[in-house]
């Protein structure tokens, strides 16, 4: 009985090793790849004071072109929104003697656009980890809604986004795959609405999406 269990265990273990090795086995080095990801943003720092909860409403489209030895260059464009409702907030305009208390709905939506350089450590492998840096800008709209009044400001910025991630193809010779990435984004964007003032908006992002690799 012990023998049978040991053999079954060994078989499963072997299968596990084989499966574990398969994703990292060599296939081909893509010449380029495109990604489409669902993006969740986590405002931090001053941005967190404005909207203190993550925004799962966002997507990102990117393209990378491998230049040589795992070095890639490309672009990212996307759309993202963070939002939260705040109850009984009071805003004042002291020089005019005005004060307003109401439930309000704050949100920021943005269109990021960046040029990206990335380095893939093992681009020929099925699972290809990478580090990257995005340099570009954003168009952001910051809204403060009180009843039917929508007070908003728009702002363009400069942004930097260091990123780590994994590009994983569904098979050694598959064109399709998945991407999982995590990045920190620093921008020069600012919010200046009544007493709400935030500068150098920052956020963390998690991207989960699909990838199409080109041989």
């Amino acid at each position: 009985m012990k023998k049978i269990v040991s053999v079954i265990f060994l078989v499963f273990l072997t299968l596990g090793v084989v499966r574990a090795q398969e994703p990292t086995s060599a296939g081909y080095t893509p010449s380029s790849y495109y990604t489409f990801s669902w993006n969740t943003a986590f405002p931090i720092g001053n941005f967190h004071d404005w909207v203190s909860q993550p925004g799962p409403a966002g997507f990102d489209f990117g393209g990378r072109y491998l230049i040589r030895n795992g070095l890639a260059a490309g672009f990212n464009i996307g759309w993202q929104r963070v939002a939260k409702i705040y109850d009984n907030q009071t805003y004042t305009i002291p020089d005019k003697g005005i004060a307003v208390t109401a439930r309000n709905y704050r949100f920021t939506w943005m269109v990021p656009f960046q040029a990206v350089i990335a380095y893939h450590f093992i681009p020929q492998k099925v699972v290809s980890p990478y580090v990257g840096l995005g340099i570009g800008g954003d168009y952001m709209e910051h809204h403060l809604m009180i009843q039917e009044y929508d007070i908003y400001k728009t702002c363009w910025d400069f942004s930097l986004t260091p990123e780590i991630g994994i590009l994983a193809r569904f098979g050694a010779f598959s064109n399709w795959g998945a991407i999982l990435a995590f990045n920190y984004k620093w921008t020069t964007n600012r919010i200046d609405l009544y007493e709400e003032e935030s500068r150098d908006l920052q956020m963390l992002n998690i991207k989960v999406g699909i990838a199409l690799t080109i041989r």
Partner: protein
Amino acid sequence: MKTKPGLLILGLGLLLTLSCSKYPPSSERLLEDLAVITQYDTKIDFNNYHTFIMATSIVKITNRDTTNVSDATATAILDQISKNMEARGFIKAITPVVPDFGVQVVYFQNTTVYTYYYDWWGYYPSWYYYYPYYPVYYSSYTTGLANIELVDLKVVDQNKKQLYLRWNGYIRGLLTGDHTTAEILRCVDQAFIQTPQLKTTAN
């Protein structure tokens, strides 16, 4: 293997749907909330005032007519204003002495009229109200609005026949939701809370 692109397209659609999903609330939900907006004359010193007189009814202005309302809710609102005024150091005056402030509440319902005059006290008939500050105007009052007004009866402009409003508090959104008297009274309190300048130590 043939189903893979189909699944991916489906996944793509799901991602788009999730990422673009509308975040609640819609603006209609915000409209159901009450908002309290106050404004005071920053150029006057409230310590120079110490008495006030209260209206005993609320003036209701609609598209059709103007009436006085003195039901239980109206009385509760006026009492709450009076309590807040007294808590800020003002003394309720006894007629026929002309007090420093006249306090009245005007309730607008389904109307776009802004210019109005209603002197509940009868001290200065046919005079006009004048805001020394640029008031928070609203293009329409279709959401229902109560305006608490603090009219200066001490400093009057005899030539222009003007009465100055030194403070006003709007409670806005009274027609859009199902609001209780307790909620409205909380809004009255909030109007005073957010105007700490409205107090006197003259007494």
